[in-house]
């Protein structure tokens, strides 16, 4: 029984960290705005004391989240790997909780690339692979690589379909 060699695992674009940081920054700005609004409301309508405590708690959590985000982005990028051969797609991710997925090409139902405004800014794309009842995303690849990957997956999964 011949064993398929595991393909060399590739990394995401280095720019993915920037994209994630931007995203995090935008989310935090919106979150802080909401918090400020809540504080103003708290003053204006003199909410009960416990509401103030909850708000301070949220401020604390946001601050911790921001600091952690910087580390998290680096860890995410450092541990993200993907690879494929004619039969399987491999996705490995996560530092504290490491996940390793093996997806047979024959089970791929559709594959697409998409880019939001942030990804566009750095000329990146994410690849979405859906199988029966599940969806796998490879975020932040250079645009050309993403399109090549999409075409490759489509090709491999189609060839198998024709064989069946």
């Amino acid at each position: 029984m011949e064993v398929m060699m595991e393909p060399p695992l590739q990394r995401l674009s280095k720019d993915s960290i920037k994209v994630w940081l931007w995203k995090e920054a935008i989310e935090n700005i919106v979150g802080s705005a909401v918090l400020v609004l809540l504080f103003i409301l708290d003053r204006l309508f003199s909410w009960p004391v416990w509401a103030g405590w909850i708000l301070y708690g949220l401020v604390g959590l946001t601050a911790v989240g921001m600091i952690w985000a910087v580390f998290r982005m680096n860890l995410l990028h450092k541990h993200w790997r993907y690879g494929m051969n004619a039969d399987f797609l491999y996705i490995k991710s996560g530092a504290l909780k490491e996940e390793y997925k093996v997806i047979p090409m024959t089970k791929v139902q559709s594959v697409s690339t998409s880019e939001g405004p942030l990804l566009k800014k750095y000329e990146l794309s994410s690849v979405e692979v859906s199988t029966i009842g599940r969806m796998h995303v490879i975020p932040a690849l250079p645009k050309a690589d993403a399109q090549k990957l999409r075409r490759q997956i489509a090709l491999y999964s189609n060839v198998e379909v024709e064989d069946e």
Partner: protein
Amino acid sequence: MIKNETNKYHPMAMLHDYIHLLKTSVPLFFLFFVLKADSSTWLFIYGRYVLPAGVIFSALYIPLKWYSHTYEILPSSINVSSRLFTTSTRTIPYSKIQQVKRKTTWVHRLIGMTSLTLETSAKGREGSVTFDVLRPSEALLIEQRVQKEKPDPEFETFKEEAVEETSPGDTSPREEIERVEPEEPASPLGSRNTGEKTIHFKPTKVDILKASLVSLSFLAVVPLAGSWLSNAEDLHFENQVNGLFEHILSSVWTITGTLTFLAAAGVVVGIVRTYKKYGRFELASTAERILLTKGAWEQDYLSVEKENVQAVLIEQSLMKRLLGLASLKLVISGENEGEEEVTSLYPFLPVKRAYSLVRDMLPEYRVLKNMDKLPRQALYFRLFRPSWLWMVVTTGLYIFKPAPFHIDLPWWVFSSVLLVVIILSRIQGYLHTRFQMDDTFIQTQTGGFTKTLYLSKRSKVIEVEVSRDYFQQKSGLASLTLINRASPVRETTVEDVPAAFAKRLKVWYTCKGHKERAS
């Protein structure tokens, strides 16, 4: 009798629809005109006009529907058409039909008919065709046609089976294995052995009796009696009820008497309920399909293609473990809405019988011996993992300090009891977890109080996932998730296996030969 012309549905379909209308409308009439007769809410005021109008309209529509709906049983497909206001025709090729279900209720028995549902892989309402009332001969014809689409035709056997099913007084002697030989070769394609139907399991009276005791369904009497008593209180009979209680509690004899009576009633109810479900149960198979007949009075008939079986589960609850029984279930692919992803075959089999049934019924499957156990550190790992359930419940108990059933105990007693239960469950989980694979099979066992053995083939596993959290990475353990097709998917997770096994799994899954599997 092969009909290729357009057929109207059997006239009895109208009777079926009228009965259905009656069943659904009577409770509504009762609600609108009796219970809420005095209500002046707009819903009920208008409802009292809308409801009769709706019922009259439906009653008039039923004959029209019968007149305008037709079906055609063609050699390779079924056409279903309606020509009322708009004309529509649906064509369902036999080759697309995944499951044939036949249900014979007591109404059907009375008029000598049956009903048939054909399930395709399409989603939603369009996915299945139901014939509410159908002549058994036509049901048989359709079944045969569906069978014909498969490489090995089995019509002769299906005829045999139908004869057996349609004669209500039929009491065929119980046999472990009964073989029905086809009288003539069905087609040049069919080899000699493919067409025969093998009966694998038919419960005896003793089996039914045992099953009804195991299922503990007789305990249902207790809440029933309880609700009856509380209802009696609602009806301002407090004095009588209190009197009754006092009377019952007044002497040991009456207590024993009442309890014995209740227990006996419970046992009887349990036996009747189990008999109703599994009385004329039969598990059989042909080379291609698994055939299941359920129900004593209302018969449910299910035919599943073996190729569609994605995994086998053998489940044992605490009670069943004590009695050495197990329930046998199949994970079947299919995207029928509202359909459960797991089909239970028979829930009260002796464990060894369950194993041998898997072998007999699905010769492609094997039950592997010598499964690997978890390493010792997995136990410590599991014991020290925080339990969110316990934390949430304990916090809740501390804040609300409830006293259920007037049991006046401090909150920490309940919390400790829960902790002990969780620890016991984790220890059992550690002891129960086993895993093994060979060339093409994978087998895992998991579960705390209820233990579940899972069997599947590499070709039926559609995705594999290995995950390791921080502590697992440090101690060389990993968690596996195997994904099978169901509706849409079913995940089986085994936690804390050695990382080496996870590696073996990856190699096993990606080995060559994988391509040669069916989807």
